[in-house]
């Protein structure tokens, strides 16, 4: 548990305090997102928790211990710290980067190596391929993964994350967020997450702390924040059309439609046509015996291919989202690929169903009416 009691911070030479009289409690296993415009004090607040910045007044407790009475090095070794990918050490390999904290703690070499492999698997980087590469050899998304692995190296109960997914494109960011939420479901870490992006806050947070000019404006669960903004500032921040924002809160798992028209790879053109008639659609998905998505066929592609099998006509499907993604991610994928639906697949690439644009539109319309 992290507790802040009337914490203030004034930077030397500055008239305006960066953080004013902040009191809040972050429960064990909770993701608390600090959100607000730049200069609102959210990063300062986070850095006061691991004493990169000391408060001018007030007390901070981590697990009921007054942090001002703990050696800062010991405090920090117990708190994972993730910043944007630029925080990786450019001269060290991925394995060396991930091993930073265990090495600092003096673990034996075997144990460090084992832990590094374990963590790289956990964040989806094959140790055999990436262990000895340098950060510069990796893509932005991969570097962010390394940043997360590095912070979790010594399995700290608390993680501080400063815009950890800030420097990648929206699609990659959504994937990283989903991966991280899946990890968090198992790890149950206490997380302080700083972002300026309200959408990210709504998606990631169990509780959201909206900050402005160094003050805490509202500290609420995402759903309540959307339905009952404390003032105009919060209302503007979360946006007028909150039913659209709520797309961040709904997981594809909960609403995926299972009655997808699909055919086997061996299906004939006639069978494909009748599947389309039956569902009154212009597209069918091709799915093999073990439920793996093989491709998609639209009505236009059925012309002049009599006698062919589904597997030969099918086009690859790129507009997919993973199990655990939000409806907002699904919408982003539709827009990105210019399709009116997305296929939902699990981590073994098995088809779980589809979500259509019409479904999303209905959902948003219903919400607005309610």
């Amino acid at each position, binding site marked *: 548990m992290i507790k802040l009691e009337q914490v203030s911070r004034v930077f030397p030479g500055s008239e305006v305090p960066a953080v004013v009289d902040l009191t809040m409690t972050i429960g064990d296993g909770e993701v608390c997102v600090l959100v607000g415009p730049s200069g609102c004090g959210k990063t300062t607040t986070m850095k006061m928790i691991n004493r990169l910045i000391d408060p001018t007044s007030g007390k901070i407790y981590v697990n009921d211990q007054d942090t001002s009475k703990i050696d800062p090095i010991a405090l*920090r*070794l117990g708190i994972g*710290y993730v*910043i944007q990918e630029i*925080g990786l*050490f450019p*001269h060290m390999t991925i394995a060396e980067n991930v091993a*930073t904290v265990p090495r600092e703690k003096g673990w034996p070499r075997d144990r460090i190596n084992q832990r590094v492999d374990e963590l790289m698997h956990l964040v989806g980087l094959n140790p055999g391929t990436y262990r000895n590469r340098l950060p510069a050899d990796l893509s932005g998304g991969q570097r962010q993964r390394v940043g997360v692995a590095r912070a979790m190296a010594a399995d700290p109960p608390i993680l501080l994350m400063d815009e950890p997914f800030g420097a990648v494109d929206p699609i990659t960011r959504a994937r990283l967020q989903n991966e991280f939420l899946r990890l968090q479901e198992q790890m149950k870490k206490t997380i302080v997450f700083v972002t300026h992006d309200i959408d990210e806050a709504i998606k990631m947070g169990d509780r959201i702390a909206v900050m402005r000019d160094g003050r805490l404006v509202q500290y609420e669960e995402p759903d309540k924040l959307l339905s009952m903004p404390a003032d105009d500032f919060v209302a503007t921040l979360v946006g007028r059309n909150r039913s659209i924002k709520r797309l961040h809160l709904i997981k594809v798992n909960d609403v995926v439609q299972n009655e997808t028209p699909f055919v086997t790879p061996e299906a004939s053109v006639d069978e494909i046509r009748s599947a389309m008639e039956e569902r009154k659609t212009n597209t069918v998905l091709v799915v093999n015996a073990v439920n793996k998505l093989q491709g998609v066929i639209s009505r236009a592609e059925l012309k002049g291919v009599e006698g062919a099998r589904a597997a030969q006509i099918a086009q690859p499907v790129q507009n997919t989202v993973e199990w655990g993604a939000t409806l907002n991610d699904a919408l982003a994928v539709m827009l990105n690929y210019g399709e009116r639906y997305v296929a939902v697949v699990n981590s073994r690439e098995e088809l779980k169903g589809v979500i259509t644009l019409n479904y999303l539109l209905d959902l948003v319309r219903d919400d607005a009416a309610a």
Partner: protein
Amino acid sequence: MSFWEFFITRLDRVWALTLEHAWLILVAVAIAIAVGVLVGVLITYSRPAAHGALYFCQVMMTVPSLAMLGLLLPLFGIGFTTGVIALTLYSLLPIVRNTYLGIREINPAVIEAARGMGMRELSILRRIKLPMAFSVIMAGIRTATVMVVGIGAIAYCIGAGGLGEFIFRGISQYNKDLIVIGAVCISLLAILADFLLKRTEKRLSFRS
């Protein structure tokens, strides 16, 4: 007597003086590296100290080399030591300055990440700052070395030996060949030193 014959008859002397010169440079630069890197690191923690130290080194560089020897002579007398001290003072500036700048120019986010993860200042220095500033520091060492190989000629005047002997004797005897031998040997020594340092840098940075 042609230049080549002149050169061949003095080959032993050329060799001895070149080694003497190289040794003088080696000792001076080694001391300058030890002192310069240490000072360069220390002044990254204090802006006023950095200004003071860099200013001092800058002033040292502007003192004409003959005047420098003149000032050091009453303090340390004639001989090798005085030569080493003079050359060390000259080579300090590039080493101190490059160490300081190399560390200061590291992305602050990297150092803050290290601090935020609980690394102690000494491990940050050893594992983050110095390795990341390494190529800049090496550039400073190379500049300093090449420079003092040239300045080193003057060390002859205070009895510290070296290739300056050819040049100054050439001047006093109106012997152009002697001057050329001295100048060429000094240039070759500078090129060789730069090449060796470049190789050392490559090898060391490949290892990390």
